[in-house]
């Protein structure tokens, strides 16, 4: 989902968010009650505010409002500058009860004291079993509370132009080693053909690859954040892609989702796409002429490690200042685990559910015409169960992502390597946390 927003705009959005939140801190000295707030049902009618960026969410909320006359939900679409608007509202103490927040933005907002812990509500803690494990691990910050309910995810898989693989008689890879071999073969067969593209300005995507290799970027022990963005697992991924880049068997000049990217696919210049579940509609809608040529298979694996990665997805967070925690929990759990709600969200908003029940939705059981009527969602459902649950994001993730991107762009342009880029990101993580007075040290 994150790909809808431009990076620059995102940066400014985040800038505004950051400014607002900090300004709020300097003036009012906000406080983060880590202890759970009380959870009493309200007497009488309640109205909840819920801000989100999902197309068609109004229909889902209509469904709830019809069934629950005493808990009415009002929604606002903030897809344009999501974090800017949120930050603004937090500063003015006008945050909604519930708001959509990406997984990687959760720790940052928590350090800005944006959330309330809903764990006093039994329904909130009980919801744990309803969600894909890694998602709950992130919204509960490793089981220390309930700050958000998972909404959707982006389990990763490999999109393959099976016709091109067939044409050049190359086997569809199942491991990253095979993938590298396939890359060489395809490029040799047709010098204008590359196996994929590496977008240096897409740290979110690269993080998904690191996640797949069980890289642990952040931990917390000894009263300090342990930062290991450049761990051995991360370096393995970086070295791998660096090799493909150096051998010029992957393109580095295409931005993810750009017209140029689609044009390259259109011209049969790229044979695969390492993508997430939500990407299936991108190809369907932008490359209609290639219907039937695409298939989706599991991500290539690192040797015997069968893990997958996640790229994108969101949660619905309990925002500080919510007056109706009990009702917020009711609505939030319904919104993200009720089969009717999930079906609508999938149909109208293209969400790939974080709830385990959602993976069994009828819509996700059927063959998809564009992909030759294959049941592509089986691949994603399977991937979604194989995602490392202990992975955690950092409290200055956005800054680290930007630093990583800048350094990866340099590597792609031939100065430095992706491993250098990891070192740069590691340094940026430590520095940005120091700037925010967050105690941190380089992890083992």
């Amino acid at each position, binding site marked *: 989902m994150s790909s809808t927003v*431009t*990076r*620059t705009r995102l*940066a*400014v*959005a*985040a*800038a505004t*968010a*950051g*400014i607002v*939140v*900090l*300004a709020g*801190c*300097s003036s009012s*000295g*906000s*406080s*983060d009650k*880590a202890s759970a707030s009380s959870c009493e049902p309200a007497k009488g009618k309640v109205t909840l505010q819920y801000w989100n960026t999902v197309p068609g969410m109004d229909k889902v909320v209509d469904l709830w409002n019809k069934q629950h006359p005493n808990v009415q939900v009002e929604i606002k679409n903030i897809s344009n500058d999501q974090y800017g608007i949120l930050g603004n509202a937090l500063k003015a103490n006008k945050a909604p009860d519930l708001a959509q927040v990406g997984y990687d933005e959760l*720790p*940052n907002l*928590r*350090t*800005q*004291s944006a959330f309330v812990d809903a764990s006093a509500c039994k329904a909130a803690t009980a919801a744990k079993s309803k969600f894909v494990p890694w998602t709950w691990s992130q919204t509960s910050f490793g089981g220390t509370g309930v700050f958000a309910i998972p909404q959707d995810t982006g389990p990763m898989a490999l999109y393959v132009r099976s016709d091109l693989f067939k044409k050049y008689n190359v086997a569809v890879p199942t491991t990253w080693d095979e993938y590298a071999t396939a890359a060489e073969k395809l490029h040799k067969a047709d010098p204008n053909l590359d196996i994929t593209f590496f*977008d*240096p*300005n897409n740290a979110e995507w690269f993080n998904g690859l690191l996640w797949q290799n069980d890289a642990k970027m952040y931990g*917390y022990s000894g009263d300090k*954040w342990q930062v290991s963005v450049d761990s051995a697992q991360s370096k393995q991924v970086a070295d791998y892609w660096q090799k493909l880049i150096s051998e010029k068997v992957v393109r*580095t*000049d295409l*931005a993810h989702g*750009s*017209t*140029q990217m689609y*044009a*390259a696919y259109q011209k049969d210049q790229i044979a695969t796409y390492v993508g997430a579940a939500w990407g299936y509609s991108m190809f369907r809608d932008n490359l209609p002429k290639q219907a039937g040529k695409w298939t989706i298979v599991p991500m290539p694996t690192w040797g015997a490690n069968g893990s997958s990665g996640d790229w994108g997805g969101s949660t619905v967070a309990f925002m500080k200042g919510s007056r109706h925690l009990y009702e917020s929990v009711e609505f939030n759990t319904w919104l993200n685990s009720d089969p009717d709600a999930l079906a609508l969200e999938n149909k109208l908003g293209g969400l790939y559910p974080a709830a385990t029940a959602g993976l069994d939705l009828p819509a996700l059981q059927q063959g998809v015409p564009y992909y030759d009527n294959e049941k592509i969602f089986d691949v994603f459902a399977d991937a979604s169960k194989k995602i490392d649950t202990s992975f955690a994001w950092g*409290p*200055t993730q*956005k*800054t680290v992502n*930007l630093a990583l*991107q*800048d350094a*990866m*762009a*340099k590597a*792609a*342009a*031939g*100065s430095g390597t992706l491993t250098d880029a990891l070192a740069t990101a590691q340094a940026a993580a430590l520095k*940005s946390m120091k*700037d*925010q*007075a*967050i105690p941190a040290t380089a992890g083992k």
Partner: protein
Amino acid sequence: MTDLATRSAGVRTTPGGRRRPNGGGPRAATVAAFVTPFFLPFLLFYLVPVGYALWQSFRVVRRSGGQYGTSYTTFGGFEQYGQVLQNTEFWSSIGRIGLFGIVQVPVMLFVALIIALLLDTPLLRAKGFFRIVAFMPYAVPGVIAAIMWSYLYSPQLSPVVDLLNGIGLHPDFLGPGAVLWSAANVSTWLWTGYNMLIMFSALQSIPQELYEAAKIDGASNWAIAWRIKVPIIAPSIVLTTVFSIIGTLQLYAEPAVLRQISSNISSTFTPNMLAYTVASGNNYQQAAAISVVIAVITFVLSFGFMRLTSKKAGL
């Protein structure tokens, strides 16, 4: 009113405005009525934010308690400035923009000067047309200009790239080495006509008699242009240079648009982009310090340039 101005502005300008004896002008209330409608918004939307940025730049974030904790800000002296000056990204963005300015500004002003001089000679026909054509880009906002040019740079869409490919050239306008100059080209395209018009206006206001004599002596158009006209309009050239320096240091919109299609424009490409990237990491105080440093550099460069040229030319 005046007292207010003195107090709030004392930070930024060298004090010591020359006093004049209160002549036979209108009453103070009348003066205030003329000046206030401008000065009040100027105070609120120019001076106060400048003061606020200064104040912010001396603060640092502190935090209490636990893994996530609670943040607050406190006085930190020159800590943010120290960090800015030690930040290699900051110096590379300054270096990048310096290189940009050293090349782009002279090239642009030279082209502008040539056009202005040509329009002021009898050598050209259809002068009105050329003047309009050169000036027209000034009507285009930077964002739209950058969007237009990004289509002409894009390898998949550009007719220019197609054309050059056709003759065996394979330019990569968005490549790591070229993208700075692609951005420079957008600025040049946008501002050449504007600078040209400043110079041209200055040329037009030179009395013809000044070079009638030279013409009679048989001086060529070139000689007249370089020996007589250019020295006379030197103040305009200085002015356009100063404006160009200010503009270069503020560069944001054009590279931001190009960044949408090229990963070779980093998030810290220009000093302004760096400031906003730093702010996006919740580090507003440091972003403020960066803005202050940029403003100081702008001041030093533009004043310095004016000083230098006015001394040299005795203007």
